[in-house]
């Protein structure tokens, strides 16, 4: 494989992974859009740290970003609680003002910083592999000098504090009474989001940062109901879309970052459709199955009523025989007969209940009973029977079939 291709994919994957890991926690806490806010509001933090330290080395930059991330979170929360405004409105004001402040700082004090709109939006992933520096004799892209520490920091912190972050995200009240500091943990997480965002910025720009923060986590959340598995799936989506996005971009000669964002979107789409945990497809299959069951049950219950009218059911039912000679020549097996009795019994019990205990008129209870008969289980039918003192007939005078005692 061509070395340039390889390094570009490595840079993209490093960045996507770091974003995906913090992103899972953003999505789980339903604060996805704070990623968007922080990716903009880090700008003044970066400028100030550049002015103070005079360098674009990773750690001073991380520091500036973390401070800006904390400021965004703090201002968003305190403006919301002080004014009674919703947090999203407060966030909208805070991050745009901070971003504007960053732009003003640049134009006033740091004209020499190159701020190319294209670079801010889409990043320069196409060129990262060209800007290299030898490390242990290997030419390594400079972008990794920022991204690798950011990824390592994210991984280490999220593993070390996994239970603290989990309890903060799920139940801050409990976290607090257990002696953890949920607010401090939340702020720490937001500072980490800021660091990851800034580290990813140069390579992939602000749009892909948001796509990568949120997309893999959303796909994972659609796919599984287990938070540990979510991290595995989000990582897979992150790396997968880096490879696929790059390959597609090279093939079509378009923006790598753009293609990666598209790949993440496709992954979310696929998860929404094919997820085994409530995907569109699975729900459609289940709906069909339950429709088929209901139709079959209706047919059975009606067959039973036909038999009842011809006066042969008690004989057949009590002996557990196969019911033959039903009007049009069809047969009810003994198993079918048991199911049918169960349904009709449920139906008539519900009718009795609605008339006796709820006080509805016998004329208006059929529809409700017709729906309920498919939902009742054996325990509920037994409870109804007990509650109603084992009635023999329903309000329309039809006998309530006894259920075979298992």
């Amino acid at each position, binding site marked *: 494989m061509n070395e340039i291709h390889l390094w570009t994919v490595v840079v993209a994957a490093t960045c996507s992974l770091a974003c995906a890991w913090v992103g899972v926690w953003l999505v*789980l806490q*339903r604060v996805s859009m704070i990623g968007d806010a922080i990716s903009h509001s880090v700008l003044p933090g970066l400028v100030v740290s550049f002015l103070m330290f005079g360098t674009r080395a990773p750690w001073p930059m991380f520091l500036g970003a973390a401070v800006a991330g904390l400021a965004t979170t703090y201002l968003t929360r305190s403006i919301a609680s002080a004014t*009674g405004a919703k947090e999203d409105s407060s966030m909208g004001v805070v991050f745009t003002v901070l971003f504007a402040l960053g732009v003003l700082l640049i134009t006033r004090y740091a004209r020499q910083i190159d701020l190319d709109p294209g670079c801010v939006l889409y990043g320069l992933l196409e060129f990262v592999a060209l800007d290299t520096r030898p490390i242990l004799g290997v030419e390594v892209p400079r972008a990794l000098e920022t991204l690798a520490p950011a990824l390592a920091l994210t991984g280490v912190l999220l593993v*070390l*504090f*996994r*239970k*603290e972050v*989990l*309890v903060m*995200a*799920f*139940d801050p*009240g*409990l976290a*607090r*009474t*257990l*002696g*953890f500091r949920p607010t401090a943990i939340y702020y720490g997480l937001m500072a980490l989001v800021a660091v990851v965002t800034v580290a990813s910025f140069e390579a992939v720009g602000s749009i892909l940062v948001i796509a990568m923060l949120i997309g893999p986590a959303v796909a994972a*959340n659609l796919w*599984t*109901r*287990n*938070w540990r598995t*979510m991290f595995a799936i989000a990582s897979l989506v992150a790396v997968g879309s880096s490879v696929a996005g790059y390959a597609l971009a090279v093939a079509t000669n378009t923006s790598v970052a753009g293609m990666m964002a598209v790949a993440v979107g496709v992954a979310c789409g696929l998860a929404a459709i094919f997820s085994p945990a409530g995907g569109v497809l699975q729900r459609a299959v289940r709906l069909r199955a339950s429709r088929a069951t209901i139709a079959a049950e209706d047919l059975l219950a009606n067959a039973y009523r036909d038999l009842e009218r011809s006066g042969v059911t008690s004989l057949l039912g009590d002996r557990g025989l196969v019911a033959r000679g039903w009007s049009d020549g069809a047969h009810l097996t003994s198993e079918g007969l048991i199911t049918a009795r169960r349904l009709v019994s449920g139906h008539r019990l519900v009718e009795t209940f609605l008339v006796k205990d709820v006080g509805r008129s016998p004329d208006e209870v059929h529809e409700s009973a017709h729906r309920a008969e498919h939902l009742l289980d054996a325990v509920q039918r037994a409870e109804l029977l007990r509650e109603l003192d084992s009635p023999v007939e329903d309000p329309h005078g039809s006998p309530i079939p006894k259920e075979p005692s298992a």
Partner: protein
Amino acid sequence: MNELAIQVRRLTVAYEHKPVLFDVDLDVPKGRLMAIVGPNGAGKSTLVKAILGLIPRVSGTVSVFGKAFSGVDTRVGYVPQRESVDWDFPVSALDVVLMGSYHRVGWFRRPGTRERDAAAKALDEVGMGEFANRQISQLSGGQQQRVFLARALLQQADLYLMDEPLAGVDAATEVAILELLRRMRNEGKTVVAVHHDLQTVADYFDDVALVNLRVFGVGPVAEVMTPERLRQTYGGRLGALETIAKSATGAAS
């Protein structure tokens, strides 16, 4: 008199300048099962949260087991209202129960085999053993409430504050939960629960606190649930309240 588990003095709590609790005193003796009752919006949950330090107090003091309480004490367990958390969160019942051991596990460490066994046992105790690996959104409301209680058991606290542990659960769960609360009390633990159903206070609890902005009475159910006090707490609607008060004082005597 028994030593106090909780002592609240002159507690005032306000949301946006409107007091929700005003100048409240409350003594909870050790080893009792106490209900906090009062009409909707009376400040019952607020009282629990203020005791726990989850919301700021405007004034007043709270002491727990004789010491000033800032909200953190491993001897105090909290069971929040079921609606207070996101049940779509991708964790299993066992994961949630395990959270009750987090304060004992220590920084940077994960719950180990010992904690997992204890969590499984706590789930068994609330009759949820077979649901350990079930994702919490797939549990019924009553089952979710039991998971919360199993988590409280794992905390091994001496004092529990519970916000509506019996709200929205089916009859069987209500009985099971109540049995559990009584067992905790018999083991010497103190349980304070916000409760919404006046009818069952006398049957279920030893003590009651009548709360509506202020505390209108605290103590054994039979002494506190008088028509006069209930009228003060609930306002109007005297007829129904008298019946309840009669059955409460009658049941205890």
